[in-house]
């Protein structure tokens, strides 16, 4: 028998650690609404004080680049070595550059 709870949306959980600067993906869970998702995420993914901030996002709000397109999707950046500081030689003796 299918219950209403079988139709709950899936949420992705992102946690920022005590000393972290960014939220990291921790996992996912089903919940009826955002508040329930947040509380369950706290109980599931921060039992050992792993985080001081949690974001929950409905999974279908996330658009992700495709793993199989990895190469071609990101290709333009691969041959633009002039975007890196190391491409530009600095004469010896010049400082603070």
């Amino acid at each position: 028998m299918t219950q209403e709870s079988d139709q709950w949306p899936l949420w992705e959980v992102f946690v920022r650690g005590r000393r972290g600067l960014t939220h990291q993906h921790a996992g996912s869970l089903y919940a009826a609404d955002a508040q329930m998702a947040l509380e369950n995420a706290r109980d599931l993914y921060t039992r050992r004080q792993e985080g001081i901030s949690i974001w929950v996002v409905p999974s279908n709000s996330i658009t992700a680049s495709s793993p199989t397109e990895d190469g071609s999707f990101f290709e333009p950046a691969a041959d633009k070595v002039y975007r890196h500081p190391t491409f530009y030689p600095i004469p010896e003796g010049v400082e603070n550059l």
Partner: protein
Amino acid sequence: MAMNSERETESRTPVAEDPLEQGFWDKIRDEIRIEPKDWMPDAYRKTLIRQIAQHAHSEIVGMQPEGNWITRAPTLERKIGLLAKVQDECGHGLYLYSAAETLGVSREELLTALHEGRMKYSSIFNYPTLSWADIGAIGWLVDGAAIVNQISLCRNSYGPYARAMVRICKEESFHQRQGFGIMLALAQGTEDQKAMSQDALDRWWWPTLMMFGPHDSESSHSEQSTAWKIKRQSNDELRQRFIDITVPQADHLGLTIPDPELKWNEADGHYHFGEIDWDEFWAVVKGGGPCRRQRIKTRVDAHEKGQWVRDAASAYARKHSSRQKAA
């Protein structure tokens, strides 16, 4: 004594006509993880769904034998430690259900299969916990065996399963230390306490060894799972590793492992041990464990009696969202 199963696999990596299938085998060969949106053989998908879900079911059912002693833990410290462990097991079940669901199966399907007896869980949890010392024995031995198995699984080819294993391994080591700590306190306690801890070891030792499964020669799935790199080490290798690690721990406790043939072998650097009672093994795997019916009944009752919580959450969400729309 150790099989070099990995080298054998490399020489057997197949060549496929279909470029998608070839891509799959190239990833397997090159230790690149297979991810949910990648092409994979149907049989690989089905095998993983079964294995990961049964692993998840084991975590949830495993909460029962230990939950049995929460109200009777001897001290407050032991009680909160046991509560935390059981809570962890629930979380582990969830990480694993999430991993299984990436393969295209729903939570409802998996739970229904468990409740209707169409999917299994680790038979070790069909044994009863008869004394407080059993909680120590389970933490030390059963979690110890699970750790050996799970460390190996951290290198399995399916990304979500491997990552779930890494997270679980981090949390599992507290479980084993907690169990060992209980055994130590009992083994160094009164004569009655020591006898209780020895009795628990006597009852849990062989079932723990059975957790690693049959000899690989008797296991129909081993060869395919090894080719797919789901299985990275043989059952016998993992069992041997567990024994080699655990015997010195038993010596430290001053307890006797119930195997008269157990003996250190200097020549190959392993503990040799007696033969497992394979009749008992197969009987239990086929559903003969003493608590099997009780475990399923308790699980089904918990699910059904919790329906009102799920209904309330759904009703609240509906009411809240229609209020927001009206505002």
